[in-house]
């Protein structure tokens, strides 16, 4: 009964924590259920009349919720909030995640009553302003990608991938090409790519990129024509561009041409659109479908893990197969949601309603704020910042693929790990210095990856401080002063957490 003993240890730890461990402004905070329950809730509601129920079922007697007053609730969540690091705290170079400034104007706009309190099934005559927001965002995303068919429904990047692949599948099926079952995916791809392809019942054929960090025409041909085939079994390819090593796929147009000749579609994972927005259009380098992460490129807040929003953009050849609904404009200038009955070629409905509308609004507010000139500057500054970091750290850390990079740069722990300091230690050292770590151990094509994406919303001072800390790490490792790295972080709300214990003996909810 090892498991029980250890859970008891957690309980002992928690009672000790909660009673004794608060110091200065560092508050320990227990769970809502561990607070002494009050005799009234934190809201005042009118008294029910206790009329006879018409539910047809017995009334529930207990639920199992805690009960505390409003000031206790506020204190609880405010104290919890102080244990989080956020983009408003400081540097957040999380590669492939685009942690940029989240303008508060966007929040204000999303809370306008005319947007916040409208229902997705209201008569369309009463929500013309909301439909106009969606229609304009569709057009702008179409313009920025040169992929003019846009559906805003997908709820996140992974949902956009699903939408995109299913759009491709629908197109193949309706064009007598339903036998195509293979999706080509480079080994450097995000894990969502193969997971999405599997959800669509596709099989994955891997394009190896190992040596140069890029997909070459040669490697692409080997995958496309594998086993002596002619590529006619290939439904499409999923490529992130710029790729997950922070590099632009130089030979992408040639690969796309070969793919198109074989009858496949090019799906671009738009996670890294921040390097291109306002400057380069994916539709002009061979892309047929792309999702856009509004929570990356277009600044909608990450919210501690969501909501995201992942609209997809497609070219004319795929527009008919987009998910439903999309917003269309009628001859009289009014807007409506185009249902499956109006466009039977659609791949169907992906979500309860038309998408994460609040995120569409925030993205539109961001785009209007930046404009064409600002967006171009966004990508240029993002690329400049990443290359500046690369140029300053290339002597101190191993650079697996030579630059220039795009909006993020890839380093590894190759020069440090032999003396026992790994990417994980470096990440935790950054925490000790008041910064969020970079993306670690991704992409998988190199060992000990550190993927650094500063974004355009960092000042040179902020970037220079990061460079200084990283150089100090490299210098300490070189001088043999390595023991301390395994203990970091020391000053964060928690030291390193025991993830093995969490996975071996899962405690996933509070129990009395």
């Amino acid at each position, binding site marked *: 009964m090892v498991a029980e003993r250890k859970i008891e240890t957690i309980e002992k730890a928690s009672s000790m924590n909660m009673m004794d461990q608060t110091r200065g402004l560092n508050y320990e905070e227990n769970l809502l259920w561990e607070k002494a329950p009050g005799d009234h809730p*934190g809201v005042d*509601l009118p008294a029910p009349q206790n009329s006879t129920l018409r*539910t047809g079922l017995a*009334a*529930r007697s*207990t*639920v199992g*919720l805690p009960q*505390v007053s409003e000031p206790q609730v506020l204190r609880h*969540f405010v104290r919890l909030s102080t244990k*989080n*690091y*956020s983009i*408003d*705290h400081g540097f*957040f170079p999380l590669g492939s995640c685009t942690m940029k400034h989240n303008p508060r104007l966007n929040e204000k*706009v999303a809370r306008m*009553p005319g947007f916040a*309190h409208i*229902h*997705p*099934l209201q*008569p369309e005559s009463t929500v013309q302003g909301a439909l106009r*927001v969606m229609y304009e965002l569709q057009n702008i995303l179409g*313009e920025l990608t040169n992929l003019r068919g846009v559906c805003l429904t997908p709820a996140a990047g992974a949902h956009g991938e699903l939408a995109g692949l299913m759009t491709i599948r629908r197109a193949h099926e309706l064009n007598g090409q339903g036998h195509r079952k293979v999706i080509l995916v480079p080994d450097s791809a995000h*894990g*969502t790519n193969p997971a999405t*392809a599997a*959800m*669509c*019942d596709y099989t994955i054929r891997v394009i190896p990129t190992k040596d140069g960090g890029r997909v070459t025409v040669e490697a692409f041909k080997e995958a496309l024509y594998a086993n002596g085939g002619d590529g006619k079994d290939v439904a499409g390819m999923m490529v992130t561009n710029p790729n997950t090593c922070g*590099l632009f796929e130089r030979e992408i147009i040639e690969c796309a041409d070969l793919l198109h000749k074989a009858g496949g579609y090019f799906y671009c994972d738009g996670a890294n659109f921040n390097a291109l927005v306002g*400057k380069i259009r994916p539709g*002009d*380098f061979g892309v047929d479908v792309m999702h856009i992460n509004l929570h990356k490129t277009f600044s909608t807040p990450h919210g*501690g*893990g969501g*909501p995201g929003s992942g609209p997809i953009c497609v070219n004319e050849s795929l527009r008919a197969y987009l998910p439903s609904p999309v917003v269309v404009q009628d001859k009289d200038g009014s807007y409506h949601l185009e249902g499956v009955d109006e466009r039977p070629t659609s791949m*169907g*409905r992906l979500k*309860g309603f038309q*998408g994460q509308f*609040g995120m569409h609004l925030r993205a539109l507010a961001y785009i*209007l704020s*930046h*404009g064409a*000139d600002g967006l*171009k500057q966004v990508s240029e500054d993002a690329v*400049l910042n990443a*290359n500046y970091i690369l140029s300053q750290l290339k002597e101190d850390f191993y650079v697996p693929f030579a630059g*220039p990079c795009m909006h993020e740069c890839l380093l590894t722990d190759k020069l440090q790990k032999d003396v026992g300091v790994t990417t994980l230690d470096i*990440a935790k050292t950054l*925490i000790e210095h008041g910064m969020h770590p970079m993306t670690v151990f991704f992409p998988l094509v190199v060992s000990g990856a550190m993927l650094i994406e500063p974004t355009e919303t960092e000042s*040179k001072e902020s970037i220079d401080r990061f460079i200084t800390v990283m150089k100090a790490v490299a210098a300490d490792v070189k001088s043999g002063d390595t023991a301390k790295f395994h203990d970091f972080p020391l000053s964060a*709300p928690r030291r390193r*957490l025991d993830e093995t*214990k*969490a996975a071996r003996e*899962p405690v*996933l909810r509070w129990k009395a």
Partner: protein
Amino acid sequence: MRYLPQTQKSRAEMLAAIGVASVDDLYRDVPKSAFIQGYARIDNHKGELEVERILGAYANENQPAGEGPFFLGAGCYNHHVPASVDYIIQRSEFLTAYTPYQPEIAQGTLQVIFEFQTMIAVLTGQDIANASMYDGATAAAEAALMAMRVTKRDKVVVGNALHPHYRETLATYIGNQSGAVLTEGQPDPQTACVIIQTPDFTGTPHALAEWRKLCDETGALLVVVVNEIVSLGLLPAPVEADIVCGEAQSVGVAMSYGGPHLGFFATKEKFLRQMPGRLCGMTLDADGKRGFVLTLNTREQHIRREKATSNICTNQGLMALAFTVHMALLGEGGFKQLARLNHEAAILLADSLAKVPGVKVINKCFFNEFVVELPKSAASVVRELAQQGVIAGYPFEDNRLLVCATEMTTDTDIGIFCEALREVL
């Protein structure tokens, strides 16, 4: 350009440090043909005031719930959100944090997820719940896919009146699996799961014992969908289910024209490893202090890739926070009281509508939503009432109208609605 800290001077310094003449030298790997000449064909940048004016004007073209009587539900509900909720979710530390992959500096988000998981588990009468899903419809689709994995069967049965959009989403997701079948009726020995919505789309609550029995006889899983989570403060917990999923927008989250909302997903412990989505668990740190981490990650796409339980890699984090704050404020007593107030508002609405000539209340039983039959096209009634500022409900099957009342519904609203109906019928 207010969001960009770099200056002409700092840009020049950095270019010099890199050793290139211009930023375009950094783009040398990009084919020339892909560059936009000049700027994209959209307007140039605008100040905060201008953007607010433009979007404020769009907002004013809409008719929001607060401006008149409002009786629309059908999977998205107009409830009151306490002021504290929005204050908390706008705190930078929650709003602008990332997914808690670095738990030492994300304990706030993680403890909230742990509390959210606990709340969903107790509400649904299940052992465990995940950190949330996109929305109710996708949660139901993921439940069906999970049932197919658990049972290794590929038939999904819809047992009662499921929200039509959930049904369509389910068809989209299931349609991806070769050999999968989506059908109506009762489970048989080939069935992976039977899906029961309660209250169902027409507002009727359902007892689950009979369905549990049918599932035990056939080996199918029982998936229960709840899209008005406030109902769980009055109706029995669906303890009979193997999976309970649905929509929790009603607590803490604005309608916001359909999203972001809050899907939830709960199940029995024995199905833990087949469950999609993020999970947060309790553990200890190096000093022996209690803490929380994302756990059981091996189910997920970033590890399992094509063998993952789902491709999902976000949760509706901020909405889950809003839910948790609102639910903490409601507490045990307030939540049950809120549910009862909703039911009583619906009773008053039903009794009032029943007195309008030509209107027939169809439901015998309901929670806060029910169907009325009208003597003419419900869609045209909805349009006519909208012109008078009344959002009447969801029209379907020609002359049926699904109407909803919540704690937001006043006696005056009901009076205006009935009067307007009398005029148009």
